[in-house]
């Protein structure tokens, strides 16, 4: 029955598949869930979620999927809840009774609850059938039934039900698509590494040494090689001013993280406004002009170009020309094409939410430059793109 739950998770982009399903099935077969919804929640979470980023999605999906059970419970009329409000203490269970309670499965419990609510007309305490308190019926409050449904509050053994736990959504801060902080950006950027052997020969090449020594009839012949060095060079171009004002915070965070990333060989930062035309600036106050042609001469195709902007402008700003010189006669879009054809790896990071990307200049720009949202997820994907040009998702 949890297969459908699997699809509910996939709908929320929690990466689960057959492997997880088999693992959960195996765990259930071994009785790891103690035949309870709580136990199922814990087991499923441990096996299906692989990163704290997905814990919140898991909780939502769990809440949604198993809400049926809760929702039915919530529809229970006021009167019933008021019976439950002052619970009677529960008597000790004999082991036989407890064993009997273990046997109910969730679907059955659910069906029984619906029936029972239809039938029940009065208050019950300490019994084993009706919705009441201090009893062993699978429904009610302050009682004990491992496969039961808790109605209106905590169960007798002081544990909140799994659905309640899920509903608390305490993993919200760990979502990947919600917030970006500098550290997360750093983690994402750290992937941008490419090692190459360069520089003076200082490291012992063991395999070659042995090889050479063997050739040399056993006389030690030491071979050295240059150490591995990081060879990533990044150009970061940022849109400033105008419609970028609201995103200032994110942009400055990304900038700080990029500056701090010491594992790069070189980082160049430039600023532009709206779109890259013939020139970019070295400061955000538009001083120290650098011509894009010059930049492309200085930097070879291996530089990774990251453009950051909302790509939101009036169409003429992207497609219009402003002057007569050869440089000025190229449109913004043509400049972008020129840049992407020069640099092997280019990405555009956009702080605007993805849903606004249709039917405006963003769409036009994203056809030229692979575009990613400025979220942890998007950043990760853009880094993948920068490393190996992996094709974009959906």
């Amino acid at each position, binding site marked *: 029955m949890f297969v459908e739950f699997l699809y509910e998770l996939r709908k929320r982009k929690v*990466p689960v*598949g057959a*492997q*997880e399903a088999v*693992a959960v099935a*195996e*765990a259930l*077969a*071994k*009785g*790891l869930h103690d035949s309870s919804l*709580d*136990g199922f929640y*814990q*087991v499923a*979470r*441990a*096996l299906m*979620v*692989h*990163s*704290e980023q997905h*814990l919140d999605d898991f909780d939502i999906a769990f809440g949604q999927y198993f809400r049926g059970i809760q929702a039915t419970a919530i529809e229970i009329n006021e009167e019933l809840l008021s019976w439950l409000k002052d619970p009677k203490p529960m008597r000790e269970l004999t082991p036989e009774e407890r064993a009997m309670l273990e046997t109910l499965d969730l679907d059955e419990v659910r069906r029984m609850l619906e029936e029972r609510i239809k039938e029940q007309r009065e208050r019950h305490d300490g019994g084993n059938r009706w919705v009441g308190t201090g009893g062993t019926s699978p429904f009610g409050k302050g009682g004990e039934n491992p496969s039961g449904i808790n109605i209106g509050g905590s169960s007798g053994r002081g*544990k909140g039900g799994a659905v309640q736990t899920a509903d608390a959504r*305490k*993993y919200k801060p*760990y979502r990947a698509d919600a917030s970006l902080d500098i550290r997360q950006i750093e*983690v*994402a950027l*750290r*992937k941008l*590494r490419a090692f190459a052997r360069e520089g003076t020969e200082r490291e012992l090449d*063991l395999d070659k040494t*042995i090889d050479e*020594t063997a050739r040399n009839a*056993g006389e*030690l012949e030491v071979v050295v090689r240059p150490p591995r060095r990081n060879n990533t060079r990044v150009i970061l171009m940022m849109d400033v001013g105008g419609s970028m004002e609201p995103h200032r915070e994110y942009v400055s965070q990304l900038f700080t993280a990029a500056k701090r990333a010491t594992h790069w060989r070189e980082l160049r930062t430039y600023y532009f406004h709206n779109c890259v035309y013939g020139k970019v600036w070295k400061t955000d106050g538009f001083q120290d002009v650098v011509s894009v042609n010059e930049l492309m001469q200085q930097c070879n195709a291996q530089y990774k170009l990251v453009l950051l902007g909302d790509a939101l402008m009036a169409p003429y700003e992207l497609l219009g020309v402003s002057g007569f010189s050869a440089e000025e006669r190229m449109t913004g879009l043509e400049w972008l094409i020129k840049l992407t054809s020069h640099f092997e790896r280019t990405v555009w990071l956009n702080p605007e939410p993805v849903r606004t990307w249709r039917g405006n200049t963003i769409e036009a720009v994203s056809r030229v430059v692979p575009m990613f949202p400025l979220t942890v997820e998007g950043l*990760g994907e853009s880094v993948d793109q920068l490393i190996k040009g992996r094709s974009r998702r959906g």
Partner: protein
Amino acid sequence: MTEFRRFRGTDRYLTSDSLESAVNCALALGRPLLVKGEPGTGKSLLAEAIAEGLALPLLTWHVKSTTRAQDGLYVYDTVQRLYDSRFGDGNVKDIRQYIKLGPLGQSFASANRVVLLIDEVDKADLEFPNDLLHELDRMRFRISETNDDVVATERPVVIITSNNEKELPDAFLRRCVFHFIDFPEKSLMKDIVAVHHPGLDKALIEQTLAVFYELRELRGIRKRPSTSELIDWIAALRTAGIDTVKLDKELPFLGALLKKEQDLAAFADQLAGGRRFRS
């Protein structure tokens, strides 16, 4: 239903339901357990607790940025052999003498079940976890120099911790049971403190915890103090014989809780109203 020995925490290490459930999943399914969480929430201690709780020996593999997956399996000491051959020491013909099993190799070779802690797996190179996939899956590997197979007779209990410095590869994650250690709530924290400082004055516990949680909520704190820092701080308070604390600018042994200069500055800005810690 197969029965196995379940993990229930130890006297010194308190667990939550979900942590126990994750550990037991890993035990029953023979999969590695990947533990993440804020620094100082007891990720590495978990392996010790499991070893103690199940009465198994513990092997530890501290991963560093230069660690390669191969190091965990075995190291072939070629240089030693080379020297021995030059100077005629040792039995150079026997390659096995120069093969030293790494922590993972030892855990496979061990006749009894062991707990293996692979600590801070994210410190190593990005490809490191991928290189271990096969070995962790099959619990066996071959020493290519001697053609010997090292096969685990008893699957070791593998606990892997990560501090999130790098994303771990998906294929690796899929094979692990995952648990994220939450920051303990106040009631659990009280129990934890009681475990480490038995017989501590109740009022002092209340006060320290109040200060501690308030401190964690202060605006602009980068490195929020964690459980281990709280324990150390209380130890310092006890040694100095201080029996009342409250959150103000004169907080004793502040350095035990806040360790970054910016955090001390943020603390000063909000509580002392001054710039005592600004340089």
